[in-house]
């Protein structure tokens, strides 16, 4: 008993250390962001005269509004289309018998391991020949394809878990495959679909290498891809760079805090199923 008590105290101490280390870089960013913009900041301090104006300056000179809009456009291209396409495919692979389905599933599963870096060169030339370079479509369409293995595997895992009795009942009632899909399966897939949407939103919003390569004007990229633009613009001012970066990560953090439970569940399941 005493042993496990000591263990519990030790555990809490280690946990607190890990928590502090986790949050330190973010606090450190805030500390830098609040120091005078024209000077080199010094470590972690609460400045006597916090320069909240840095956030205003970074927001305006960094064109943050335009950046967010570009990101939203790319998210709107990627998330709805991916979810619809993957839900149908997940149902087909999970519940129907189709000749060659094993081969198709295997092809998708292998795709799960592909690092984006491996395909970035050919994707660039593909988008060039399609005339899509420097448009949100280049990043959006490529991401739909690159996220497809995960999305399909995710939705299939859901449909495989639905009790067979349900589809049997629907079939006995004479429902066609489409009717069964729309009236029986889809309403039950809500949680799986919303979790997938959360993950795809996050991964698109945070996507870096594709926008950096495919879109030349940083203002048309995703916010994450635009961070390099901030680095270039504010190389002389660490406070402004940190203020800009903080502004950029705030929306995702707010969304995370609101949908925390769903996020954490989605990310954990995403790790396990993915």
């Amino acid at each position, binding site marked *: 008993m005493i042993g496990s008590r000591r263990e*519990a105290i030790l*555990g*809490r101490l*280690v*946990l607190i250390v*890990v*928590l502090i*280390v*986790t*949050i330190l*870089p973010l606090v*450190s*960013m805030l500390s830098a962001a609040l120091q005078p913009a024209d000077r*080199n900041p*010094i470590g*972690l301090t609460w400045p006597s005269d916090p320069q909240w104006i840095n956030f205003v300056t970074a927001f305006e000179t960094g064109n943050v509004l335009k950046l967010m809009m570009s990101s939203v456009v790319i998210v709107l291209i990627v998330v709805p289309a991916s979810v619809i396409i*993957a839900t149908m495919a997940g149902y087909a692979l999970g519940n*129907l*018998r189709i000749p060659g389905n*094993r081969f198709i*599933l295997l092809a998708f599963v292998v*795709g799960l*391991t*592909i*690092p*984006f*870096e*491996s*395909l970035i*060169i*050919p*994707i*660039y030339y*593909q988008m060039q020949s399609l005339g899509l370079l420097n448009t949100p479509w280049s990043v959006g369409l490529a991401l*739909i394809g690159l996220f497809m*293995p*995960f999305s399909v*595997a995710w939705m299939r*895992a859901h449909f*495989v878990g639905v009790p*067979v009795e349900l589809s049997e009942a629907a079939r006995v009632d004479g429902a066609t*495959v489409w009717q069964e*899909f729309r009236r029986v399966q889809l309403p039950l897939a809500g949680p799986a679909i919303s979790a997938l949407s959360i993950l795809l939103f*996050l991964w698109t919003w*945070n996507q*870096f*290498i594709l926008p950096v390569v495919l879109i030349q004007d940083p203002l048309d990229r995703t916010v*994450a*891809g635009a*961070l390099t633009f901030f*680095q270039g613009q504010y190389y002389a001012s660490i406070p402004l760079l*940190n203020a800009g970066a903080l502004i*950029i990560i705030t929306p995702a*953090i707010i969304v995370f805090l609101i949908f925390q439970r769903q996020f954490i569940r989605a*990310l954990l399941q*995403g*790790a*396990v*199923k*993915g």
Partner: protein
Amino acid sequence: MAARNRGVAGSTPTPGGVTGGSPVMSAVAPRRVARKATRRAPLAGWLMLAPAVAAYGFFVIYPFALGVQYSFYDWNGVGASTWVGFQNYLRVFTDAEMLGSIRNALVLIIFFTVIPVSVGLVLATLIRNIRAGVFSTVSQTILFLPQIIPLAAAGIAWSWMYAQTGTVNQILSTIGLGGITRPWLAEYGFALPAVGLIGSWVLTGLCTVLLLTGIGKIDTALYEAIRLDGAGWFREFITITVPGLRQQIAILVTLTVIAALSSFDIIYTTTRGGPGRETLVPGLSIFRIGFTQSDVGLASAFGIVLMILVLIVVVPLQRLSRESK
């Protein structure tokens, strides 16, 4: 995952994916009704699969084929191309710069995989009895923060942490280690571990929380029994906790190794491969060779090699996690 591409980038293999289907299908097989009905669905099934197959085929398989094709040519991206056979691959495996970037990526596995999984294991074991409450909810939220922010932003945050006047050096000076302060990302011998620790920072929280959910599923009777046997903390850890978490560990190792081998975002926003080639990794190497040096064939060949490298590491891990089921 995603890891984080990823974020953790985003994409990782499905352990249960391939095998998961077969037990279900064989369970369905004896039921005549269901089987008959499902057999009639090839047309509808194919229609439902078609968009996914098209998206995957057009934006993953096709670029992959294109990459394979480029890898056999000498091409600057604009002019005429010349067939060079396997010469580009030969260069990948003989060029010091590219070999160095592969070596760096393998070193990063220590920081992206070994450290987060070990810390996660120890921490999860120590706090496995923590009661659900405000403290545990807040902890979980904080541990997940690095998963939410883009890796590129993590790079910016840590560039400042590691700067000469940054927080790391400030803390070192405070605890009397002022003598070892330095601009960590700019010095030979320190830059790669420093960048690696950013990866540890990103991934430790995820590992801890996932292992914690796994540990909750281990039968507590096992722990009571071994305690009665008089076993200590370490034996308990080795004989019960680690085997009980084998599947979670396999998943995390897969996920984090992929993150280590494709660490473009962090490197690009912190060191860009420097000082010298100290922190050059395959992703950045491909980017440079392909777009700065305009050697499309060589960059494509390196891309294919990177893909194979990931498969070589990941496939045995999948075997392992499947056996443990």
